[in-house]
């Protein structure tokens, strides 16, 4: 066991994957000698060589497109897009090619690749460095969309993503990279994809979130506990394919649900969860489902970013409204 923060857990999982599978290769901008702009790949090129830890030219389309070719030809590429703000050029390669290579060849070819990218606001970064576009990818059939919320889950989910036979988009919340440490056992054990994690069991209200926003969500649950309210807290972790059943089970017991995410509210993934509850869990609900999300605005520059991101107070306000329904 080692006390590691999230970015160190990512590094550990990558090292583990490179060690145990000779077909694993990393590619991306500045991931070699520099170890990645967040140091997620620090030391890996020195250990595994420049061919397996490949510093690419500055070309996001090529990073994704080359990974598609690598994966189809037997490698297990783990590509890095330096920030999600730079991920948009890869949409064609991911949506039109990675996600459907298996489908369109009836399984003859497949695309076991991972596309990692640091996401989210809260680190006072420059323009285009604070976005959370997970819903774009969660909309695409054939993909997996995964976001860890802690060092332990980053290690286990990243190993699962690399071993998965299909393409996985793996967002790493930059705000969590160095926020806290956990004991992470380098045991090579993957966590399950396609399932939510119940972080805290409770009986009065279900709080659903993922990624960095679980920090505020758990803090809100602590505050509500002080007031005698028992919160169930669920980490969605894998948005695509989405495990609605864990949330339905929870809401069947609590009758109330608040969804918290950092991305803009309209068309965000919270809408999918709320719609799922309306379709399949309506009779369990004692109060309207509420979404506490980023506003439908451009993610502001650093000085306003904390007013954009959902706060503990906003979550508490929504929860209290829900609790007012008898």
């Amino acid at each position, binding site marked *: 066991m080692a006390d590691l923060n999230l970015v160190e857990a990512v590094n550990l999982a990558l090292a583990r994957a490179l060690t145990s599978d000779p077909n694993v290769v990393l590619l991306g901008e500045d991931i070699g000698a520099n170890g990645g702009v967040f140091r997620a790949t620090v030391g890996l090129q020195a250990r595994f060589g420049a061919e397996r830890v490949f510093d690419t030219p500055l070309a996001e389309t090529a990073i994704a497109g080359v990974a598609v*070719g690598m994966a189809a030809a037997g490698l297990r590429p783990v590509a890095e897009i330096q920030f999600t703000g730079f991920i948009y050029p890869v949409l064609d390669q991911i949506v039109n090619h990675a996600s459907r290579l298996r*489908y369109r060849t009836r399984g003859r070819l497949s695309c076991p690749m991972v596309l990692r990218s640091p996401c989210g606001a809260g680190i006072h970064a420059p323009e285009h460095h604070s976005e959370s576009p997970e819903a774009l990818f969660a909309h695409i059939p054939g993909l997996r969309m995964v976001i860890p919320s802690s060092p332990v889950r980053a290690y286990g989910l990243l190993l699962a993503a690399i071993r998965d036979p299909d393409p996985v988009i793996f967002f790493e919340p930059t705000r969590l990279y160095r926020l806290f440490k956990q004991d992470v056992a380098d045991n090579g054990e993957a966590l399950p994809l396609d399932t939510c994690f119940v972080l805290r069991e409770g009986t009065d209200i279900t709080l659903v979130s993922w990624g960095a926003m679980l920090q505020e969500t758990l803090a809100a649950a602590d505050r509500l506990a002080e007031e005698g309210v028992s919160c169930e807290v669920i980490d969605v972790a894998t948005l695509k394919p989405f495990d609605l059943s864990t949330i339905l089970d929870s809401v069947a017991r609590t009758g109330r649900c608040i969804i918290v995410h950092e991305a803009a509210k309209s068309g965000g993934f919270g809408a999918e969860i709320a719609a799922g509850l309306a379709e399949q869990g309506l009779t369990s609900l004692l109060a309207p489902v509420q979404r506490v999300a980023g506003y439908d605005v451009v993610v502001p520059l650093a000085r306003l970013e904390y007013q954009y991101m959902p706060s503990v107070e906003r979550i508490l306000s929504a929860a209290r409204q829900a609790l007012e329904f008898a």
Partner: protein
Amino acid sequence: MKTIASFDVQYDQFLDSEGEPQQALPEFARDPATLISLYCAMVLARGFDTKAIALQRTGKLGTFASALGQEAIGVGTATAMRAEDVLLPSYREHAAQFCRGVSMRESLLYWGGDERGSDYAEARQDFPNCVTIAAQVCHAAGVAYAKKLRHEAGVAVCIFGDGGTSKGDFYEGMNLAGVCRLPLVMVVNNNQWAISLPRSLQSAARTLAQKAIAAGIEGFQVDGNDVIAVREAVGRGLDRARAGDGPTLIEALSYRLGDHTTADDATRYRDPETVNRQWQFEPVARLRKYLARIGAWDKEKEEALLRECSECVNQAVEAYLATPPQSGTAMFDHLYAELPAGLQAQREEAFRFAPRDGENHGGS
């Protein structure tokens, strides 16, 4: 100012449009049997093309992209390749695919709207048709990277159009391949048209081959209507790749004698007279003239070949038309290696609402 680097772009042609040799033929082309096999492959591809358009016009096939006039590029490229090489074609390269072992029935299934058409029984590693322009250049660089890293024999070969050379995917893939000296051959089927946009409006560059210079790799231009020149050029690129000398860009000059696809009407944007003039340069007659000149071909052989191709195409069409449709739930197959639990309910819904036997399957 002083010159710090200078470059030139080579052009190659062996047979002119009259089938006259312009220089000594390469070794492979001195064997009439080899040239006859190239000729047969081009005639077969053209016969398939004609039939596919007829099928589309009679409602038995979906939209189809003809390769009319560009058969030498596909045949020259694919016949230079080895089995362990990987072809990454655009959607207009069935002439190449047939030489790689893709069946005409598979191609018809694909254009007829059935995913099984891309599950090739042969050429298992070849990529399916790439519809988004030039994306396969990046895929080809990735395949080449994998081949190199895994110490596997084989070269990635991609084919794309003149329009593709305007795309970022092309520049990015080629540039990366140059840096890594990847075993990659990129063939530009310069048929002078990207749907309605002529080559002159695609790029101010005098040649498309010169784009290789910017990437620091080998590049040259050939007469793409001369199958000998195409095969020789691709062979040269493959040799360089196998020797570890990195990627090659080959611009093959040809002409799109047909519409962009069956959904297009080229008379809207180009003068039919211009197209008629281009017929004098097309690749099939050119090789036939040469073969006749050396006494390797005559009218009888031609008639026999046309009969044979026609039978072959008709058999493929029969097999295509006799292929039972996929079940409605096939759209859930191969989406993931294993269908996620959350999708089971949708699959069951599709099954419940699928037409029963005897009902309209929604096909054309």
